């Protein structure tokens, strides 16, 4: 019993210590952002790795998610004779929820795990200490540009996901199933609000990008410098990012779309 309590206390303490390290790490990363601005080349390279290489998976997934929404929505809505609202259904579910959330999950799986593995390996092969020996702050040189790239890419990727999804839904809806194309777009435009739907969706994706990149970079930086440590850190990145994204999504949705 005593041992159980001791173990509980120890694991609580370690998790709080880790949270503290993560917060400290975040503050250092944020203060390092200013030194990224004079070196746009670093940011550009990371935008390529984080953003451009996620482009394909995001657009293809977005297309298929939109097409599935179009199909499923059509089957449900045609029971009520409301096929004309298909565009509204596809667009609001994409812009409010699926766009930010699914693209953030894909982002965590595609870019987040790569970031963790990269930084973890840099640590394991003592490249980070090497950089430090040359009197260069690894946070400023390695971490901050990656963080900024993640923060900038995420809203763009989420917007791409939603836009491609809406077009995919239209392809299936009016191309395959014969929903009127005018009704598809006009119902969507009549009911979706710029501020309530689009802006809130973008805010969501910025928050998810912030959290997913933070977790990925911290797990890499905090990884045990062994091959096993790096592989564990990569797993933790994906798991923790998914939990945080979905949990935060609930909170943000409750805050944003609370009253009509």
């Amino acid at each position, binding site marked *: 019993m005593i041992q159980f309590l001791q173990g509980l206390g120890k694991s609580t303490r370690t998790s709080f210590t880790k949270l503290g390290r993560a917060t400290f790490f975040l503050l250092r990363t944020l203060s390092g952002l200013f030194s990224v601005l004079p070196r746009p080349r670093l940011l*550009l*390279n990371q*935008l*390529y790795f984080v*953003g*451009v290489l996620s*482009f394909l998976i995001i657009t293809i997934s977005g297309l298929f998610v939109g097409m599935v929404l179009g199909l499923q929505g059509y089957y449900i809505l045609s029971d009520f004779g409301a096929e004309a609202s298909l565009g509204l259904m596809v*667009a609001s579910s994409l*812009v409010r929820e699926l766009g930010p959330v699914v693209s953030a999950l894909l982002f965590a799986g595609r870019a987040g795990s790569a970031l963790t593995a990269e930084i973890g390996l840099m640590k394991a092969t003592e490249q980070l200490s090497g950089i430090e020996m040359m009197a260069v702050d690894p946070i400023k040189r390695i971490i901050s540009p990656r963080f900024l790239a993640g923060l900038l*890419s995420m*809203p*763009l*990727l989420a*917007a*791409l996901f*939603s*836009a*491609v999804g*809406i077009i995919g839904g239209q392809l299936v809806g009016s191309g395959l199933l014969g929903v009127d194309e005018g009704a598809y*777009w006009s119902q*969507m*435009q*009549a*009911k*979706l*609000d*710029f501020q309530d*739907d*689009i802006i809130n*969706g*973008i805010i969501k994706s910025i928050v998810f990008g912030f959290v997913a990149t933070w977790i990925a970079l911290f797990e890499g930086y905090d990884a045990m410098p062994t091959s096993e440590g790096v592989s564990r850190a990569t797993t933790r990145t994906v798991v923790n990012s998914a939990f945080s994204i979905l949990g935060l999504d609930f909170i943000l949705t409750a805050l944003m779309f609370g009253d*009509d």
Partner: protein
Amino acid sequence: MQHTSTQDTLVGLFVAAGVASLFFLSLQVSNLSSFYDKETYTITARFENSGGLKVKSPVSAAGVKIGQVSAIDFDPKSYQSVVTMKIQAPYNTLPDDTTASIFTAGLLGEQYVNLEPGGSETFLHDNSKIDITQSAIILEKAIGQFLFKAAEEKK
């Protein structure tokens, strides 16, 4: 050097595609484009019952949307519902004996305010009140009355 320049191009393409889809979402998908001219004037109307009317419900005249509901308040003195509407500035020739009624679009559709112009020579202006109103038809009430009537006739 070749390598970095293609990388630059790809990053540029990525950012351009992202920004383009943001524009697509705001202009094509949402109602941003219908609010270019923000110039409106405000009128109020009192209803016995505003039913399922909501803020942002459309206000239309002759079937054309000319504005939207901006606020719905309950007046604790007269026990009426005070509906504030924003009407687009170009439509400033509504007579001051206009009738406001709350209709439902379709059988189960959303409710909207319909303005029926009267014959007066003076027009509604900012902050003016519509005196003649017709409340929303509450479906439950109407069914109740119908059943009551049917029972009366049977006797």
